[in-house]
């Protein structure tokens, strides 16, 4: 009996497997060819090829890229390489992998490094340079970076005084998401100073709302949105010079400046009157994922959400992002109306090979040509390249970010947790601020992070 039943079941299973296999096989055949003729090649205007002539005849050569940028942001990247490929005859092989940050170290150690890697953190760049496999940036790239980026950006791509990696994209973290419709209906204005922001928040509370919503849950990286909050306030309340000293540990992590910054964050995030719109009390911030953090804005359950420019991708496709849409962002103001500190992040182009085609490609990526080509094909992308014409950007949030980054008054600072030693920046800073949110006091929190700083 048992054997009988088993065999009939296995017949069903075989039939199921075969039919599923057929379906997948057929769809694999059907889909793979459709997308091949690139739309970008035709829609993008040809670029000036002269800068790449100097690298000689590169026809038939290949450049491999390895990066943590995956779907859907990878498609515009691949599109933006096409003018270069047409100019030079080089084939660019793109490999996106979410596990990039660990795997790039493994590959570098094992001599299996790609030609080019997009490194999202200066701290990681330093560790890669320490493996001895990263090549210094060619002179053409250095010249482009001097021309198109501020000195602060060049510094982030340098290790030990040598310039290795040109900046690529950027993200602006000093943004507050809101609903333009709600602001219009209730007569709220975008705040111009930190005091304005506070007043606006109080006004919303008086209107019977819970103004702020937040989410810091992000798996093993839980807590990182809190570090951004604190860095933003550090930058605003104590100024960029103190911020730089703080992240280099020239002043203690638990000094009066840091205490002031974290307490300022606490006025918002540890205040049950202010948070957590759409989710519950203060503690619900820790259990809400950062992807979900700002979604209650769409439901009208929350009015303000501080998160980076890339958060735009989190809203469902049905929601319109823009100054006249369902959701948009304003610049998290400085302490005064004429200071414009900007917290952000970005990627850097590190090369593990110095073949001519790799150098040519690095030069292309560091040019204003690429920045504008990329702007035309992508949404949710921005760069601090001064050669970028903001009119080329597709998406209103990108335009806003570009305006903030390219504002002559702006003082850009890189996300401090990406620059601190990994034991702090990717560990205790996340964990202790999470503990702080769920009840630990400011002093204990900062003391514990200070104690974890590698001696």
């Amino acid at each position, binding site marked *: 009996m048992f054997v009988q039943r088993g065999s009939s079941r296995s017949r069903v299973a075989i039939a199921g497997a075969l039919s599923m296999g057929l379906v997948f096989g057929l769809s694999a055949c059907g889909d793979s060819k459709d997308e091949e003729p690139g739309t970008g090649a035709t829609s993008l205007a040809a670029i000036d090829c002269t800068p790449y002539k100097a690298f000689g005849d590169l026809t038939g050569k290949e450049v491999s890229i390895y990066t*943590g940028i995956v779907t859907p942001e990878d498609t515009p990247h691949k599109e933006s390489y096409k003018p270069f490929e047409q100019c030079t005859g080089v084939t660019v092989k793109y490999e996106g992998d979410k596990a990039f940050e660990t795997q790039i170290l*493994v590959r570098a150690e094992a001599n299996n490094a790609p030609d080019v890697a997009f490194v999202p953190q200066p701290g990681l760049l330093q560790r890669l340079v320490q493996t001895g496999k990263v090549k210094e940036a060619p002179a053409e790239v250095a010249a482009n970076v001097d021309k198109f980026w501020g000195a602060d950006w060049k510094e982030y791509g340098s290790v030990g005084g040598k310039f290795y990696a040109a900046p690529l994209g950027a993200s602006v973290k000093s943004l507050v998401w809101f609903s333009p419709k709600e602001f219009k209906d209730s007569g709220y204005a975008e705040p111009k100073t930190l005091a304005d922001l506070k007043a606006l928040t109080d006004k919303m509370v008086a209107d019977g709302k819970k103004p702020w919503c937040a989410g810091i849950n992000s798996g093993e990286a839980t807590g990182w949105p809190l570090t951004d909050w604190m860095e933003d306030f550090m930058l605003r309340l104590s100024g960029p010079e103190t911020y730089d000293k703080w992240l280099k540990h020239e002043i203690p992590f638990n000094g009066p400046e840091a205490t002031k910054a974290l307490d300022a964050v606490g006025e918002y995030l540890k205040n049950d009157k202010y948070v957590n719109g759409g989710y519950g009390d203060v503690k619900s911030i820790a259990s809400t994922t950062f992807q979900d953090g700002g979604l209650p804005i769409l439901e009208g359950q929350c009015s303000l959400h501080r998160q980076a420019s890339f958060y735009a991708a989190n809203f469902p496709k049905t929601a319109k992002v823009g100054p006249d849409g369902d959701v948009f962002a304003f610049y998290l103001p400085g302490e005064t109306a004429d200071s414009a500190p900007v917290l952000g992040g970005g990627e850097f182009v590190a090369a593990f090979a110095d073949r001519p085609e790799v150098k040519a490609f690095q030069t292309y990526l560091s040019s204003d040509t690429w920045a504008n080509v990329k702007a035309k094909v992508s949404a949710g992308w921005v760069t601090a390249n001064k050669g970028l014409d903001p009119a080329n950007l597709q998406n209103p949030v990108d335009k806003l970010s570009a305006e903030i980054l390219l504002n002559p008054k702006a003082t850009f600072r890189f996300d401090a947790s990406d620059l601190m030693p990994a034991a702090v920046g990717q560990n205790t800073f996340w964990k202790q601020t999470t503990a702080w949110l769920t009840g630990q006091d400011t002093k204990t929190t900062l003391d514990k992070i200070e104690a974890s700083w590698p001696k």
Partner: protein
Amino acid sequence: MTTEAPLTTAPVGGAVKKVTTPAAAAKKKLSSPWASLAAIVIAVLWTVPTFGLLVTSFRPEADIKKTGWWTFFSNPLVTFENYEAVFGAEEGVNLADYFLNSLIITIPSVIIPLFLASLAAYAFAWMNFPGKNLLFIVIFALQIVPLQVTLIPLLTFFVDAGLAGTFWTVWLAHSTFALPLAIYLLHNFIKEVPSSLIEAARIDGAGHVSIFFRVLLPLLTPALAAFGIFQFLWVWNDLLVALTFTGPQISPITVQLSNMTGTRGTAWYLLSAGAFVSMVVPVTVFLLLQRYFVRGLLAGSVKG
């Protein structure tokens, strides 16, 4: 049926009852109503999350992001968009392309270690050569080496050997990691074969090769199938080894599944549909071979 006859006639008198085999006693205990109830409860508890995943995979994006799958029953909105997305190039990843890669990776990664391990197990069980016991202990001890520590040296080796970026890297890596346990398991199984069988074959003039292929291999089937499933599930679900050794063209479905959620995890709602697609094959394999799996789990562990 005839083999079961003695069991049904055995429990007649009190004296005979004591002779009841342990298997029959276990069967009686396990088929009591309470045991059945417990089994049903456990089965339901185990299945609920999978069921929730299935329901989720058919819900619209906004619903998945905002509410739990159980709200489906009060608000049943069904959509195939998630499945269209995981098979559409529009989202950047078409899982169908990587389905084949997973099969190409998994099948040799099961066959190579099974073949090598059964030969090695035979040698350890029925051949005499100097240093046999020491070698066996060394292989047995290799099981405790965590595979993580071997990743960078292995990758360096593959790069030096010019194998980087080919399927050989994953095939060899998975085979290497599987061999110690496979040899140990199959050795214990082969050792249990009555020596009279082997001796009879030898008297009939069979060498090692014909003993292995004609006498032992048919007897080994359940053990091979059991280890085969074990290895198949492990390789199919593996992410770490694939991440380290495969490149963009040859990566399996697990790697693409993790990339599918987007650079910052914004498309996580696609995971439920993606997970179901990648589950089809392992579930099929398990259903096909589950009888061997249970039988084989006991192989080498219980000695009479």
